[in-house]
């Protein structure tokens, strides 16, 4: 089967959704020329300027207009470029898109997908590198998704577009070029995690790009006699409590890792839930509460590399 990269996978999912439903449109800065990461490549040629809409640099109105579009029959896919820029549209996401259905008593629905790429990306420094999934997981009304592979980006973007709730869709900027095969049939659904690697001694929950470092650390741990089960959460809200709790109950230890800031990160929610429900040892691994620095030496401090994960999980398993 042909290989496809993470950006192309998303592009294909969107193209298929647009062919199937004339109400699916996309809007944002630079989408006409393919988006800054190539994730809209060729779409304006196929669907025209009326459906792949190049917009001014007006994040509030990109998101707010998408709310108005969604309320009146369209299914907009909203490009925010990087998650950091969505902070210019935070009212539109938090007070408008997320609240609309509830505060108006169910009169309207807001079926939009807001694409907010997260993560470090080659020297992009403090304002283009943040992983803010916890912010949006905190807001009732929103679904938050973070795909880790081309296959998941294909399947989960399709699921997000089909979803009638507003979805914050967080692709990782260091995954665009990652290649993989597309699944022969669609199985991924929102709210369902996946066991990326089975194991028996410890459950390692993570998502997005860190799934790959986690899998690598698990392989190395296996050579040292430690069997790690890696769970790719895929959807941050609603997170798959059943799968995580069942795995953690079996292994007796749960470590959650993310490349977002550890303090008040979404890992804290998972760790607290597992501890409350199962009373087993839990541990968090995240990045320090510092902005992402530009120089490689500084940027690396804001990463969670596979070596650190390996260290942490060994220490965790060996602890009494």
């Amino acid at each position: 089967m042909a290989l496809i990269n993470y950006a192309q996978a998303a592009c294909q999912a969107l193209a298929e959704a647009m062919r199937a439903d004339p109400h699916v449109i996309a809007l944002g800065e630079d989408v006409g020329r393919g988006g800054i990461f190539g994730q809209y490549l060729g779409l304006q040629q196929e669907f025209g300027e009326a459906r792949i809409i190049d917009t001014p640099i007006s994040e509030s109105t990109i998101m707010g207009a998408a709310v108005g579009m969604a309320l009146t029959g369209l299914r907009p896919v909203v490009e925010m470029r990087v998650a950091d820029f969505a902070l210019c549209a935070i009212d539109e996401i938090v007070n408008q898109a997320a609240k609309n259905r509830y505060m108006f008593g169910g009169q309207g629905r807001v079926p939009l997908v807001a694409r907010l790429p997260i993560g470090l990306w080659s020297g992009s420094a403090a304002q283009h590198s943040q992983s803010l999934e916890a912010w949006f997981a905190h807001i009732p009304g929103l679904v938050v998704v973070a795909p880790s592979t081309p296959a998941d980006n294909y399947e989960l973007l399709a699921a997000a577009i089909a979803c009638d709730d507003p979805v914050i869709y967080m692709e990782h900027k260091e995954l665009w070029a990652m290649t993989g095969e597309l699944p022969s049939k669609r199985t991924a659904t929102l709210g369902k995690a996946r066991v990326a690697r089975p194991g028996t001694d410890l459950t390692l929950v993570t998502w997005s790009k860190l799934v790959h470092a986690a899998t690598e650390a698990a392989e190395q741990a296996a050579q040292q006699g430690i069997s790690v089960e890696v769970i790719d959460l895929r959807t941050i809200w609603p997170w798959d409590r059943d799968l995580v709790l069942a795995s953690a109950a079996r292994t007796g230890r749960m470590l959650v890792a993310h490349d977002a800031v550890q303090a008040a990160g979404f890992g804290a929610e998972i760790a607290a839930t597992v501890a409350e429900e199962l009373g087993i040892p839990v541990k968090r691994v995240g990045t320090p509460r510092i902005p992402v620095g530009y120089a490689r030496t500084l940027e690396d401090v804001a990463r969670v590399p596979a070596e650190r994960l390996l260290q942490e999980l060994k220490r965790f398993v060996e602890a009494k």
Partner: protein
Amino acid sequence: MPANTSPANPSAAERLLDLYRMMARIRAFENAAEETSRGGVAVFGSTADAIALVRGPLHLSTGQEAVAAGVCANLERSDYLTSTHRGHGHTLAKGADPTAMMCELFGRATGTNHGKGGSMHIADFSVGMLGANGVVAAGIPIAVGAAHSAKIRGSGAIVACFFGDGAINRGPFMEGLNWAKIFELPVLFVCEDNRYSATTATDAMTAGAGAAARALSMDIPAETVDGNDVLAVEQAARELAARVRSGRGPQFLHALTYRVKGHVSVDPASYRKQSEVDGALESDPLKLAAAKLAALGVAAARIAEIEAQARVEIDAAVAVARAAPFPAADAAFTDVQDTGAGQWL
């Protein structure tokens, strides 16, 4: 109705009577809301009175009725409208049922929003009223999106986007107008200028020549009217709405009115002179319209009858709202989201 009092100019009189009727209904609604809200919000360290029927911040459009009535007279049911935190008048004028609206203000299950929104979030999607909004200027991008959607879908609907004079100092105002113009969208922007940004006079907070000048700077045609003269508003809105409907892109109406009440119902507005308020009351929109009706030969009894009918209608709405049930507590969990419904912790 008295039988032998046919006015000199029947069509002009009937048109104004319709507008007057709508303004009288809005006035009666606002008066009733104000009355039933007393004690409903905590002020100056006091505790809100649990007995109050309307709770929380109540923003009244008393004295601004001509803008809602005059603009909405030119809208179809299938057109859309976005409103502000001061949205009762717009909602009523767009065709919403005052009983369902009053139930919403009373927080009842039978309200337009089933008790989940209250005054500040009142909405009636069934008549195209896409919502009042607790955030100043937030309705502008939503209106622009609804207009963009109407254009893409070729539905023929237009959007009336109401906002206040305070909103023109927020970013979404500039973004939304620019967007509407570059895409030539079917939206009628209506700046309902009541001279106050919350509890501060807007003039001192606004650089340049104001709302219409800002629209003109983006090549959006703009008209400024006396927002208390319902005929002037109706006429200007008719022309602008016709242009919007014919595909000539966004148009802008700047309607100058005055906020007779405080920012919220409990605000005594002691930051302004009584003489200023007294002066504004001289040009109360209902008073102006009544004088015009008299000049057109409409009998005073007919005007009084319209006002009485409005009061009867709103009194009935209040009676229904008083008796209506509150939503059950478990309704707090409905209409949040489908994906993950039930996962509240």
